[in-house]
């Protein structure tokens, strides 16, 4: 048969060109699926060559070229988004860990300030400046860390979990804003405290969601630990204040340290799992 003489050569030639064109796809995708795609293309070539002849092969090439252009662009875009998301989640995990250390250090060092109402300077200057720098930088890093949590884990956390992380982000922003206007407005303290309380309460409830849905591969208790202590400290402190006492420094330091440990564990998981957060069904 005439066809049997030229068909295998045209199939081999087509497959060779297609295999060469696979270079348009991202390297990882090509390495994983390139041989399979070439195999499928070879199968379709055989069929078209047998049943459609030259017009069939031409039509196949037209379809395949469009498919190749469209899907290679899609794969590059997806790879770019995934890489950016992965990087952001990883860095925000580190931000959360650094923020936790700075926040705890600022709070604990600041507790040595003997006079809370005096202007910054004098004998307490080191404690006061450490507190302000630690807490402000810590709050900025918290917001970045929580945004990373939202970006990387919203789909795994369900609609409630995603909304809670968003509330925690808003709380973190309000708290940071309060901190920045603290010297010029009395509202600053209220905003800082309310923002911090909102952030930690939202993180506490998110912790319950994380445990129930097993959002992280390990340490699902971390958000709960990170969130629950500050609201408890607020409550206990308010109760003690109303009865004329003060919260002991050791209890304060212990509570802040527990929060920092929770945040560090959460941040560690985020940076460790960043690669697995970059998956979507387009």
């Amino acid at each position: 048969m005439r066809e049997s003489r030229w068909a295998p050569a045209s199939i081999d030639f087509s497959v060779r060109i297609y295999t060469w064109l696979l270079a348009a796809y991202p390297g990882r995708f090509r390495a994983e699926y390139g041989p399979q795609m070439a195999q499928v293309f070879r199968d379709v070539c055989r069929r078209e060559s047998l049943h459609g002849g030259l017009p069939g092969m031409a039509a196949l090439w037209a379809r395949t070229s469009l498919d190749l252009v469209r899907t290679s662009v899609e794969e590059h875009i997806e790879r770019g988004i995934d890489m950016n998301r992965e990087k952001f989640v990883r860095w925000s995990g580190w931000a959360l860990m650094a923020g936790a250390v700075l926040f705890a250090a600022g709070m604990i060092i600041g507790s040595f300030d003997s006079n809370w109402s005096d202007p910054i300077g004098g004998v307490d200057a080191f404690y006061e400046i450490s507190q302000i720098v630690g807490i402000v930088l810590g709050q900025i890093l918290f917001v970045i860390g929580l945004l990373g949590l939202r970006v990387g884990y919203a789909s795994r956390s369900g609609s409630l979990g995603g909304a809670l992380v968003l509330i925690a982000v808003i709380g973190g922003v309000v708290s940071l804003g309060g901190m920045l206007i603290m010297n010029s407005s009395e509202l600053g303290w209220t905003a800082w405290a309310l923002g911090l309380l909102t952030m930690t309460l939202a993180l506490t409830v998110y912790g319950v969601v994380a445990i129930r849905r097993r959002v992280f591969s390990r340490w699902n208790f971390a958000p709960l630990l990170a969130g629950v202590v500050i609201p408890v400290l607020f409550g206990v402190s308010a109760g003690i204040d109303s009865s004329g006492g003060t919260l002991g420094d050791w209890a304060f330091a212990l509570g802040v340290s527990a929060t920092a440990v929770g945040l560090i564990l959460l941040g560690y998981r985020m940076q460790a799992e960043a690669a697995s957060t970059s998956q979507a069904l387009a």
Partner: protein
Amino acid sequence: MAEAAQGPESFLPLTPAVFHILLALADGEKHGYAIMQEVEGMTEGKVQMGPGTLYGSIKRMLAAGLIEESDDRPDPTLDDERRRYYRLAALGRKVLRQETERMAELMALARRKHVWSGVG
């Protein structure tokens, strides 16, 4: 797998390629070319997926836990043992059922609105 923590409804509506691949795998595991043939057969040639669409969808479906690669390899004398076979995962089956129910509800609505007679 973390993605499996997502409910089936979170995947809906499916893209045509994903829906057809799930449907092609509903009656057993298949390799890439067999999936392509099945989809063309089911749709009387109206849906023709290129290798890029097929394997791009397969990649995302594997990552989402909708399908899984079969460890079983056919007898090399019967088929090319280098081919990879795919099958529906439990989540994929649930997603396929929910998507089909969603479509059935849409068709029922179209019938009530006299947009579609229900035949042909």
